[in-house]
């Protein structure tokens, strides 16, 4: 299944995004990762970034895609 990753800034933001996507039929899981900003919560989204990112921007969450 295709997926892409979104770095969120906090667990609160990650869980908000996960629940929002779930309510809109998009599955995602939260993974703890270490990246350019230290420890972070990454959302593994099973969907298309072109569809998901505009949805998340509506609730104030940007797709900070990891390098």
């Amino acid at each position, binding site marked *: 299944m295709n997926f892409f990753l979104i770095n969120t*800034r*906090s*667990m*609160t*933001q990650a*869980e*908000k995004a996960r*629940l929002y996507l779930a309510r809109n039929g998009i599955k995602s899981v*939260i*993974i*703890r*990762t270490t990246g*350019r*900003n*230290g*420890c*972070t*919560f990454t959302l593994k989204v099973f969907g298309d970034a072109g569809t998901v990112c505009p949805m998340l921007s509506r609730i*104030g969450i940007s797709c900070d895609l990891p390098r």
Partner: protein
Amino acid sequence: MTAYGANPGRSGHAMSMAASRAVFASRSACAEFFGAEPENTVFTLNCTHALNIAIKGLARPGAHFVLSDIEHNAVIRPVHSLKERGMSYTLFESTPDPVQTMLNASRAIRPETVALICTAAGNVTGQRMPLLELADLCRRRRICFIVDAAQGAGLLPLNLKDGINIICTAGHKGLYGPMGTGLMLTDGKYPLKTLMEGGTGSASESLEQPEFLPDRFESGTINTPGAIALGAGVDFVRSRTPQKILEHETALCRNLCGTLRKIPGVTVYSEIDRYQEQYAPVVSFNIGDIPSADASLKLSDMGFCLRGGLHCAPLAHRKLGTLETGTVRFAPSAFTTPEEVNRLAKAVNYLARTK
């Protein structure tokens, strides 16, 4: 503790994530209850902690604060402590006439005023403040409006969408959460400096405290069982509805006030039986010249748990004229019954006759 025994917002293993989800669910419930976003809903140790974050977060050289004359020590003490740093404050007189109260508040505001802080309802007599009008005043005067909602949350309409910038509240009163919990909810219009810095489980590479909420104000592990339980308390209030709980408690207080007023030697300081709309359900009284702490002990021996003393609200007692004596305070809950109130009135009658 048995299901989510792990630290939320720190690790990625199953138990930590389960705890994180439970905390978020509680945060969301609290946020929705007060018209806030979950990110702008901060779990605190209690209302005092929340007020310290809000008040000291706005402190800057030369700042001025406006407070009502019935504020709890949780408000007046942090503000008063800022005098040592060159800041100042003014108390405005609250009156039974909301128009006069508004005039008094308006006159207290200066060009250097950064915030107006007031209680939703006093914890001694239940006196309510005209919050909508104060919110509008603060908006027009471009100052932050902070509400101490400890005595009103779960009963009175309190919502950020009504123009309040920051709501601070206790978890253990009208929200039916455990002691040692509280909330600070903000609309985000007024950035706050931090009271404490530390590990947040986020942006951990940086030595700077995160700018984003709630992490900015939740350094260290939060009171996880408390936060989750607070969400359950909010769910309880929503299920009963604040309006129904307020009606229930108001009826109990009106009954008690009316009965106590007929007992010779008893002084009642609350007026919820005369001006229902102006008071939250709290009744303060004294039995003759029995010191309030002694009266509270005597009532405790008879099976009634009421607090006697100054209730950490010396300003309110100074205004009432009870700074020397304090008062005995009856503060009902959703579970208090009319029969219990009747028994309390009889107990007060007994003490008044036999003192």
